[in-house]
């Protein structure tokens, strides 16, 4: 029984009553929690069923798209008999078997029907309707959960009698009228409710709801703190670069391209291409042709810090599964919400990029299409990796969201990194779509990478030519901007990845200097035949570079294995000597 008799006898024992009240409410909250858990379980099950239905289609879709086959069961459709018809919902042609009749003149395909059905059964319709009024509201109603949590937190404090009201923090910014009600500490239960609900309101209001000014101001401090946190996070990123700066001879790690995550087959490669609509197509890279491929190193370049940063916020929804039969890892990127704007003036053209770490080579990269002008993009793209199951344990799935600005300008919007070792691919429920909070970039796990793939190490040295040094010396007096020479000595590499079975590579290096507003300048080192640990001691000279330009430049160094038979040189690894700081240091 959850009711407390408030007759006068009980009221006399005020303290007792309060205890009883608290117990009563707690009991209700716990009971609610159980109901909620059951409900969540049910919804999970529903969604799983839906997803299995969807995957079923996906599994079959490895065939070439055929107009004349049922989009659901893949049965081929006839020209006269069983012609199939186009589903109202998804515009796919489906056979008569794969339809659900809603009424004599309306039907939907099985997947569309199941989709709507789940939406109703899971109560999604309500959350969608409610979101019209409270756009920032979470999907699930969690008042009870939030209350329970804060109650437990607060009651721990409030149990000790003489302490000052523990809720000052929460009531500080709340409605003054409410505050006056809660003046007396004796009414502790009401106070507790008041503070709890204010707290709850605050949580929900802090997202988007601008209706209540008072509550918003309460948020202020919190936001500030969060911002501070963010700032410090980006500071670490700067620290990384400054660490690079202080090394006299920069040893840049190169992640080797590894065979096991090669593009599936020719056919699938095509599929990939159709996914990638952004100009930086990897397809060329994946084939191992070196021409035009440096373009794609832009992403390696973004990895080393040469990109804009936005305050990371928002979430991404995706699902992942492993098809054991085909050895394919599939990641279905569904959508993002509440992304940060990539640039000022509310610009955001988000896309999602995926790597199977530690492999950061282009062969490990998958990208979605770029969605224009939205912070709530819907992607609905499935990215695939052909990879042995045994390999997964050592991999991390890195899913990052980027803003594609003008002229290759990229802004990092957040990422999620999932160690696949802990992922149970056998478990069906792990295939469900879930929302993940986007996180700022972790501090670069360089040391991890050395341990993980410790395969390839390039030692590069930069030295300024004599006249360059002189300029620096005289430069203080002379305001003229002389044209300098950038020299890069490629010393050697070791532990290069072995691409071909038991074959020693024929490595060479390509250096590509990217200066602002100028075409890329490429240079190539000699090929060292059959050297696993090649020593080049080769000098790249880039002429006509001004110090000002260097500030904004970056140098891509890539190592290739020259193919003996074909023109398909294999990419072994690449590094970007990030930006200005490196060169400044060399001055």
């Amino acid at each position: 029984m959850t009711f407390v008799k408030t007759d006068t006898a009980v009221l006399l024992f005020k303290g007792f009553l309060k205890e009883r009240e608290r117990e009563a409410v707690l009991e209700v909250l716990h009971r609610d929690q159980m109901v909620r858990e059951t409900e969540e379980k049910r919804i999970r099950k529903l969604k799983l069923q839906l997803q299995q239905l969807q995957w079923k289609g996906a599994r079959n879709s490895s065939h070439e798209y055929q107009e004349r086959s049922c989009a659901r069961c893949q049965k081929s459709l006839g020209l006269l008999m069983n012609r199939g018809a186009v589903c109202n919902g998804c515009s796919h042609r489906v056979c008569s078997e794969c339809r659900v009749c809603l009424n004599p003149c309306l039907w939907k395909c099985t997947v569309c029907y199941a989709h709507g059905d789940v939406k109703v059964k899971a109560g999604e319709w309500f959350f969608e309707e409610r979101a019209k009024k409270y756009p920032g509201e979470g999907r699930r109603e969690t008042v009870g959960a939030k209350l329970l949590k804060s109650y437990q937190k607060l009651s721990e404090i409030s149990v000790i009698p003489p302490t000052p009201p523990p809720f000052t923090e929460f009531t500080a910014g709340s409605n003054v009228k409410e505050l006056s009600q809660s003046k007396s500490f004796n009414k502790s239960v009401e106070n507790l409710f008041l503070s709890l609900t204010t707290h709850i309101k605050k949580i929900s209001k802090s997202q988007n709801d601008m209706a209540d000014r008072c509550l918003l101001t309460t948020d202020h401090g919190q936001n500030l703190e969060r911002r501070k946190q963010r700032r410090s996070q980006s500071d670490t990123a700067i620290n990384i670069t400054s660490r690079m700066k202080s090394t006299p001879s920069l040893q840049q790690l190169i992640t080797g391209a590894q065979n096991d995550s090669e593009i599936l087959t020719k056919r699938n490669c095509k599929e990939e291409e159709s996914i990638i609509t952004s100009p930086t197509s990897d397809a060329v890279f994946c084939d191992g042709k070196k021409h035009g491929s440096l373009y794609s190193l832009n992403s390696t370049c973004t990895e080393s810090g040469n990109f804009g940063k936005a305050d990371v916020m928002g979430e991404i929804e995706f699902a992942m599964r492993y098809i054991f039969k085909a050895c394919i890892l599939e990641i279905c990127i569904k959508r993002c919400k509440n992304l940060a704007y990539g640039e000022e003036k509310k610009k955001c053209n988000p896309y999602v990029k995926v790597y199977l770490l530690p492999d950061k080579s282009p062969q490990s990269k998958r990208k979605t299409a770029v969605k224009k002008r939205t912070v709530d993009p819907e992607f609905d793209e499935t990215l695939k990796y052909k990879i042995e199951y045994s390999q997964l344990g050592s991999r991390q799935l890195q899913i990052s969201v980027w803003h594609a600005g003008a002229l290759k300008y990229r802004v990092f919007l957040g990422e999620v990194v999932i160690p696949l070792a802990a992922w149970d691919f056998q478990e069906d429920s792990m295939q469900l779509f879930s929302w993940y909070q986007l996180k700022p970039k972790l501090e670069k796990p360089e040391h991890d990478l050395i341990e993980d793939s410790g395969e390839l190490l390039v030692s590069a040295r930069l030295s300024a030519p004599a006249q360059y040094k002189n300029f620096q010396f005289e430069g203080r007096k002379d305001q003229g901007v002389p044209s300098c020479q950038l020299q890069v000595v490629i010393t050697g590499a070791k532990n290069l990845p072995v691409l071909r079975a038991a074959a020693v590579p024929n490595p060479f290096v390509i250096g590509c200097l990217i200066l602002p507003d100028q075409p890329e300048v490429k240079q190539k080192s000699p090929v060292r035949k059959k050297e696993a640990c090649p020593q080049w001691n080769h000098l790249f000279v880039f002429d006509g570079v001004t110090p000002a330009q260097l500030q904004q430049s970056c140098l891509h160094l890539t190592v290739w294995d020259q193919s003996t038979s074909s023109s398909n040189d294999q990419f072994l690894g690449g590094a970007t000597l990030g930006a200005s700081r490196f060169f400044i240091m060399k001055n």
Partner: protein
Amino acid sequence: MASATDSRYGQKESSDQNFDYMFKILIIGNSSVGKTSFLFRYADDSFTPAFVSTVGIDFKVKTIYRNDKRIKLQIWDTAGQERYRTITTAYYRGAMGFILMYDITNEESFNAVQDWSTQIKTYSWDNAQVLLVGNKCDMEDERVVSSEKGRQLAEHLGFEFFEASAKDNINVKQTFERLVDIICEKMSESLDTADPAVTGAKQGPQLTDQQAPPHQDCAC
């Protein structure tokens, strides 16, 4: 929707999850109008004349069979007392429908209906379904609010209206079932407007199909 079967994608449900929809309903109104009694009559078919003031909030769960669907109702009973207002209003947002109750023998409780309705408008979603219920209709002798007055107010507020008695079990079941029906109507309405055939882009799976027909990794 109702005539469609689930068998196509194999429905296996354990007993405690054996329902199709879950609706959350909130009962509000002044203190002592009979909210808790009303809920107890509906959920447990019991009645006790003693007045027991609800502490903050409580709920009961009842699964009913309506329109060929098993619907699990989580019915929240709220404290009418002003001092609990902050906790009770926090629950408005999760409720799909409301039963706003007054006592036909208590003028004050009837006069407060307008305020309660404003509370719903403030704290709930825009499509909140509300039934106005005048409770204690068994106490005809002490009636101070006429049926006509109640009906007029309900009409004015855009709510449906019932007079009921938890004690004599009059219109209790009918009230809840009507509310469930209205919520069901709202639900299919919301589905119809959000139908992919109409809105197109808003639904994930369909979006894929429309944008990139040759790429069908996502089944739908």
